[in-house]
């Protein structure tokens, strides 16, 4: 099915099941421990041996010699995989560094061996006996020092690194109010709950991987490519995922090394990354240096805006597209954005929840707060004045498909009690706390991608949906079931959803907040095909047929779907593909974040007191799971504002704080009441679901609202994230 013209009224509009805040249909299994995760699939792969990854102790250089004798002789050891015996491995299309290093070392903790043994303890103990002599080489690890050598990176998802419109330099130099500031954000680790984990089993030349992966088809492709085997010989099974945030978009070392280990020892092998291995072995969100310049008139109306971003990655890697939102968020005839990418020999930088916008808005929305103060304009009003209903780089001929930023700002401000904010910092005292409010716009691009599904109905009227879509904790199971139930007019309880298996039709997968809208649109397409088959079986014209209460109706006639399915059942498969509506219309999701913090007058400790936001993201398929996505993302935004940072040791070239005792994310005590309002919106250009993504929108701008609240509370502006006590004390003493 092709979606190339705006959606008309369709069965989803009934809103009988879709749009209801239904509990997760997989919730009971998850909270009772009966939803098996990859590493637990002893039932599917009995007798699995245990693999333990040995990571490189240097960041760059070569392995001069490996002595495996002691490890091989250790109790229980079945085999050791290294570059020397793994056979030819081709790097995956989605990988920047090789997942099995050696003799060349590309980054610290890059896997250089897998020790396979009968027990986890034996594998781990033997891994410590692998002796490696390295010849280190000097590397580049300091973004601030290397930024100057940055070059224009390749296009990202079809968008160029640099853009411009009008004459920024001229307009900026003439502007009545000029803001120019520099902001930095550190490297971030996904820190999802379930580590990367896989079990691999070979049956002849066919490989099955039980793994934890967001993008089944991408990863099947890269497994096949890396091992040099046909895709048809690779099966991936990933029905439950304990969080991903982008860490599991790709084939990673756990899955590849489990496959290599299983091949070597001739039995299934399971591999999980230990928590302290994850930050340096896997991908991370890269650090950025950002320069923002805004030229406005005295009322804050923007005439010129520029956002430049520097980030680093391994050779062949990609840039953090932190200027992305600045191309679309605010008006201004004269504008430019630029990304520069420099080589760093740190571990691989890559996508983490809302790549680009999550850190771009940490800078842009603080810059807007600073501009508001310079102009003496309320920060909410400033954003309203700079709203634009079309792509400001392309001009009015490319309008937004839907854009309710102003509605979000107004409704959010109203609910939060923004009018009680005192613009001058440092005015509100509550005991030992200085209290302040801050806000920020939320913006995240909307992407939709081809997504397939098959759907069947049996003689009992049970509906089954199969797609390789994944549920990374987001609620995919539930919204897919809701979609199928709505389309076929059956109760939700009668729908079974099967996900995350490469034998199912290829979906859009989970990433870039494209999963919900894309995968349900794929189910919509398959359901339309099944409706046609059911109508044909009933002898009704499909366009006139109605589906409700387990029946297909035509005028006063009706037939039971179960009866039409017959003993063999009826199945249909289709996918949703997209035309050029995303070229003709800018598509994005919007919101407004509000935050109240207390800053301790003595110690500069920051405590968030309230967070609230209003969001417009098309049809909200399930307000309960959508709210969970948003509050989780707001929490992540609070973490980015206040504590999250991978600390780079530029001598050794690694992230020092590589465990969850030292890489801090918010705990319950950090996060108070969070209020989420969804603004009614249907986007008929996004898909027949009229939905957009919402899984990443909540992180976008949340941290800036915290930063702006700190400024309003205490008059302290820290532009280097995270805003920790040491930086606040230094700002205070400066």
């Amino acid at each position, binding site marked *: 099915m092709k979606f190339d013209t705006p959606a008309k009224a369709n069965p989803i509009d009934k809103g009988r099941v879709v749009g209801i805040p239904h509990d997760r249909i997989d919730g009971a299994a998850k909270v009772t421990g009966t939803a098996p995760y990859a590493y637990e699939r002893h039932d599917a792969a009995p007798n699995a041996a245990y693999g333990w990854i040995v990571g490189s*102790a240097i960041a760059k250089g070569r392995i001069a010699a490996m002595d495996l004798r002691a490890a091989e002789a250790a*109790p229980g050891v079945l085999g050791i995989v290294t570059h020397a015996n793994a056979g030819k491995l081709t790097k995956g299309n989605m990988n920047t560094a090789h997942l099995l290093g050696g003799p060349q070392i590309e980054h610290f903790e890059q896997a250089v061996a897998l020790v396979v043994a009968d027990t986890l*303890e034996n594998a*781990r*103990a033997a891994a*410590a006996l692998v002796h490696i002599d390295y010849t280190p080489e000097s590397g580049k690890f300091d973004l601030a020092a290397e930024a100057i050598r940055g070059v224009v990176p390749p296009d990202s998802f079809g968008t160029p690194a640099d853009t411009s419109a009008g004459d920024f330099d001229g307009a900026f130099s003439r502007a009545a109010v000029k803001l120019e500031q520099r902001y930095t954000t550190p490297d971030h680790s996904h820190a999802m709950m379930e580590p990367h984990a896989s079990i691999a089993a070979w049956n002849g030349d066919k490989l099955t991987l039980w793994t934890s992966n967001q993008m089944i088809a991408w990863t099947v492709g890269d497994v096949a490519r890396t091992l040099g085997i046909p895709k048809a010989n690779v099966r991936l099974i990933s029905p439950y995922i304990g969080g991903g945030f982008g860490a599991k978009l790709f084939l990673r070392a756990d899955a590849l090394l489990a496959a290599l280990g299983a091949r070597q020892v001739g039995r299934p092998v399971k591999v999980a990354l*230990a928590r*302290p291995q994850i930050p340096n072995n896997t991908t991370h969100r890269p650090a950025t240096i950002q320069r923002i310049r805004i030229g406005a008139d005295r009322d804050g109306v923007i005439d010129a805006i520029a956002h430049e971003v520097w980030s680093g990655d391994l050779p062949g890697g990609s840039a953090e597209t932190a200027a992305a939102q600045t191309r679309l968020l605010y008006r201004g005839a004269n504008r430019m954005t630029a990304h520069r990418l420099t080589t760093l020999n740190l571990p691989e930088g890559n996508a983490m929840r809302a790549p680009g916008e999550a850190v771009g808005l940490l800078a842009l929305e603080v810059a807007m707060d600073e501009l508001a103060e310079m102009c003496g304009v309320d920060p909410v009003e400033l954003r309203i004045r700079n709203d634009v209903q079309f792509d400001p780089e392309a001009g009015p001929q490319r309008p937004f498909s839907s854009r309710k930023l102003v509605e979000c700002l107004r409704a959010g401000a109203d609910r939060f009690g923004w009018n009680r904010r005192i613009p001058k910092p440092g005015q509100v005292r509550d005991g*030992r706390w200085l209290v302040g409010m801050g806000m920020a716009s939320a913006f995240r691009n909307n992407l939709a991608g081809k997504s397939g599904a098959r759907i069947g109905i049996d003689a009992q009227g049970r509906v089954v949906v199969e797609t390789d879509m994944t549920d990374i904790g987001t609620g995919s199971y539930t919204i897919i079931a809701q979609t199928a139930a709505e389309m076929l007019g059956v109760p939700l309880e009668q729908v079974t959803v099967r996900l995350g298996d490469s034998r199912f039709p290829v979906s859009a997968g989970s990433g870039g907040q494209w999963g919900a809208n894309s995968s349900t649109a794929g189910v919509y397409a398959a359901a339309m095909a099944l409706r046609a088959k059911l109508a044909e079986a009933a002898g009704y014209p499909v366009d006139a047929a109605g589906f409700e209460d387990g029946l297909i109706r035509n005028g006063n006639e009706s037939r039971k779907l179960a009866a039409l399915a017959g003993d063999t059942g009826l199945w249909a498969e289709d996918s949703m593909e997209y035309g050029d509506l995303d070229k003709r219309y800018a598509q994005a999701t919007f919101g407004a974040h509000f935050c109240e913090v207390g800053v*301790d007058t*003595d*110690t*500069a*400790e920051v*405590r968030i007191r309230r967070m609230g936001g209003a969001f417009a993201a098309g049809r909200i398929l399930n307000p309960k799971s959508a709210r969970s996505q948003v509050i989780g993302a707001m929490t992540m935004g609070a973490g980015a504002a*206040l*504590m999250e940072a991978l*600390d780079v*040791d530029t*001598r*050794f070239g690694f992230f*020092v*704080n*590589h*465990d969850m*005792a*030292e890489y*801090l994310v*918010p*705990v*319950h*005590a*950090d996060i108070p009441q969070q209020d989420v309002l969804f603004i009614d919106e249907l986007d008929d250009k996004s898909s027949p679901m009229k939905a957009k993504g919402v899984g990443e929108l909540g992180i976008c701008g949340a941290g800036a609202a915290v930063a702006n609240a700190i400024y309003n509370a205490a008059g302290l502006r820290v532009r280097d994230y995270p805003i*920790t*006590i*040491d930086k606040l*004390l*230094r700002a205070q*003493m400066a």
Partner: protein
Amino acid sequence: MKSFTYERAASVEAAAKAAASVQGARFIAGGTNLIDLMKLQIETPTHLVDVNHLGLDRIERTTEGGLRIGALVRNTDLAADKTVRRDYAVLSRALVAGASGQLRNKATTGGNLLQRTRCPYFYDTRMPCNKRKPGTGCGAMEGMSRSLAILGVSDACIAQHPSDMAVAMRLLDAQVDTMDADGVARSIPIADFYLLPGDTPNRETVLKQGELITSVTLPKPVGGTHVYRKVRDRASYAFALVSVGAIFGEDGTARFAFGGIGARPWRTQAADAAAPHGARAVTDAVLADARTTPHNDFKKPLVERILASLYRQQEERA
């Protein structure tokens, strides 16, 4: 984790004897720190002597009017004890400021005294660390040292002592009661219990091989107002950047002990003596010999800010 042998000790004497007789033996109680370190092969004991079944889990009055706390009393139980809450409130407050509920349920009084530093270079066996592997150098001194110590440090080591409980114990002049392999008991004032790193940061306490902590004894209550203020990077479940335990007397005197800034739980006579002169004087006294890095120099003003805050609260109470 390296293979190890395990035994469950039947008595304190047997435990001490067993631990002394096997090279590389360690006691295990709650295991909240040791087992983590074993998984990372930072600790590689050959033999574990499990002391969990030795009793040692009572809190009882001493004849001197103090309190004897069995070494195996869990942090949760100690923090909730009525006598502790009434007479030694700073101890209760320090305990609940540490770790998480789950960890406090397992962690013991004796084990908490012995928990090891959170220096990230100590935690990575590929990095230099004189504490973990003497002679390899210190990775932290020129590296990431934001959380590390500024007092009692040496050229070999700037690791901080991570315990909250031990700060309160230091403030309360606790005695650490032990028994050695020969069955000899002794009581070690907590002021003498911890060694400074010097050239041997791998040696952290005066305990001999096989010497088992059997209890911690507090002197009779000193009264006053007990406070424990812990400043960290998030609201809960994080180690202190700086923590201050304090007991303010009615007469303007006070005593202070500090966490997060010292190679051991930190307390000085000079700081206590300066108490009547206020926060600045106490700060100057306690930080006279501070040695900072560009990453952790903020701890100096933070000490003063916390003390100023505590003094102000004390004035508001009065």
